């Protein structure tokens, strides 16, 4: 079922004054889409999810679910969570501690007044899909974190919701379990074909799970797009630094025009901008810019032979398959990812900075 937000805002009142958690958010989640809300803590992503669930009323704007208006301040419409047929998985799992696994999963069906036979069938099916059929009589306190997680997911899918909401469901699992549950969630969502909104602060989860990602900051959507869009074409320095295993290098640089060509000055280095990047830099219309390049795109070799940019390795982190180097180019610090394990701390290196893969931003713009 489609979910749309139009100019939705939510302000919470506290003793220290109003907190503007969500500010004019526009969203459109397509039928059957796996949509990820990504952002640092306190960016309002959980509030967006609670607005979709009906746990929170918006102060302004309109929310539609499958074409039906479910919340609108102006239209005086508010549809309770019960009538929205949404399901939610919480970071804390929120299992009912006094009920067995079976009763936990059956709970939404019992509230809805489904017959006993149908409950048995639906619960067994959901428990089977998640491989928890053998712990049906256990209580939540007896379960491991991974099992609780599965029970929470089973409870959410058991009544075939129109919208599936997940609030950081993997953040309480250990690393190994997180990776396997991640791929399982993806498979489950494909199988059920249910529209899903997933909240996380982990860009890896967002990149691997999402059909599309909305990046949030301070209650606003910074950028919406496919994982490729966000990785390849981050529209702001914030998006650029938030997406990527190792954050993108963002350094101050200046631009000089010499004889019709544009040159980029990175510290002492002077690099000729090819036509494509040159056009992008011109569109910024300023001589002082913010230059961004991903650590994995920078080439590196020992020695200085004929290279326009050279630097010194100041720190080195072995990540296993690759090495993360901190290289100082004049006064500018750059991170570089390389497979070359022969480079040592203190080495002088030549850098190959492919300007076609670089990003240019106006200075001082978040």
């Amino acid at each position: 079922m489609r979910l749309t937000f139009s100019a939705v805002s939510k302000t919470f009142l506290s003793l220290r004054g109003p907190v503007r958690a969500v500010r004019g958010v526009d969203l459109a989640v397509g039928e059957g889409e796996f949509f990820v809300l990504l952002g640092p803590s306190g960016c309002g992503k959980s509030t967006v999810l609670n607005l979709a669930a009906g746990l929170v009323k918006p102060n302004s704007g309109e929310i539609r679910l499958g074409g039906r208006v479910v919340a609108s301040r102006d239209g005086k419409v508010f549809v309770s969570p019960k009538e929205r047929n949404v399901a939610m998985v919480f970071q804390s799992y929120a299992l009912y501690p006094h009920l067995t696994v079976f009763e936990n999963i059956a709970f939404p069906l019992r509230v809805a007044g489904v017959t006993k036979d149908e409950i048995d069938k639906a619960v067994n099916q959901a428990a089977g899909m998640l491989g928890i059929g053998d712990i049906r009589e256990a209580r939540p306190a007896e379960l491991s974190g991974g099992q609780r997680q599965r029970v929470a997911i089973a409870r959410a899918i058991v009544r075939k919701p129109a919208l599936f909401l997940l609030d950081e469901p993997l953040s309480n699992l250990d690393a190994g379990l997180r990776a396997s549950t991640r791929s399982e969630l993806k498979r489950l969502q494909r199988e059920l074909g249910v529209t899903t909104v997933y909240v996380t602060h982990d860009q890896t989860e967002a990149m691997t799970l999402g059909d599309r990602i909305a990046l949030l900051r301070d209650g606003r959507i910074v950028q919406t797009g496919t994982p490729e869009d966000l990785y390849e074409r981050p529209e702001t320095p914030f998006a650029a630094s938030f997406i990527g295993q190792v954050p993108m290098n963002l350094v101050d640089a200046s631009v000089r025009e010499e004889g019709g060509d544009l040159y980029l000055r990175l510290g002492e280095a002077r690099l000729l901008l090819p036509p494509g990047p040159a056009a992008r830099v011109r569109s910024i219309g300023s001589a002082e810019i913010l230059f961004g390049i991903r650590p994995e795109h920078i080439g590196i070799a020992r020695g200085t032979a004929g290279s326009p940019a050279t630097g010194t390795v100041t720190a080195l982190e072995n990540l296993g398959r690759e090495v993360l180097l901190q290289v100082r180019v004049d006064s500018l610090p750059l991170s570089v990812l390389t497979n070359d394990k022969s480079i040592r701390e203190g080495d002088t290196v030549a850098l190959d900075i492919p300007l076609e893969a670089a990003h240019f931003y106006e200075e001082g713009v978040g």
Partner: protein
Amino acid sequence: MSDQTQVRLLYRAGALGIAIFSLGPILYMALTAVSVRPDFLSPDAGFTVTAAHFVSVLRTTSLHFPEYLRNSLIVSGLSAAFCVAIASPAAYAITRLPLPGRILFLLCILAVSLFPPVSMVSYLFQVMGNLGWINTYPALVLPYIAWILPLSLWILTSYFAQVPADLDRAALIDGCSRLAILRKVIFPVAAPGIFSTALLAFIFAFNEFLFALMLTTDHAARTVPVGIALFEGLHGEIPWGVVMAASVLTTVPVVLLTLVFQRRIIQGLTRGAIKG
């Protein structure tokens, strides 16, 4: 003597001291109840065991002990039931609503219970007299509810605050109304708190003396503490053996209730709701 032994010795001595201090009077009460003569500690008296006091408490109709006990159980039971029934939705609202200055609100409620009962009893006597309720159950139950409610509210608030709010949200999403959440999720999860509050309210009402003394006149509504205090012997002397036997019998329901509920007052029921 090592430090550890010293600590252990002091610990045991302290525990023994407290036990003797608290249980001594009860032991003395029990012994007096089964002794032929109340002054069994004096050298010329001697200690002879008898059940006569118990028999006379239960059989002597002029003492009205069974009626007092019945009144006490009904009045205390009603007070406890009403207190929990009123305090639990209130506590739920206090813990769940976005209420700025919640603590101020709770302190105001606590302040109500700080008035000494003796300052209100004469006024209460007039009110109940005008209503024609003197010597009826409502005359005791209503003031007891008002008197115990603030405490019940405080205890339940602290219990409900421990129930994670995510459980409410999950239940809302699963289709429950707020009242259904209270009944199906909060009550079962906070059951230890409900039971201890009910038990405490019961004991408070069961032990209350002043209101019961002023607002009742005879065995139609008089409760055990007052009843026992007004026991009189045939010739005006205090019948210690009978008084003590009645006291022993009075502790039985309270001890039984505590034992029964203790099995329900198990902590750790909320463990496992949240990642542990």
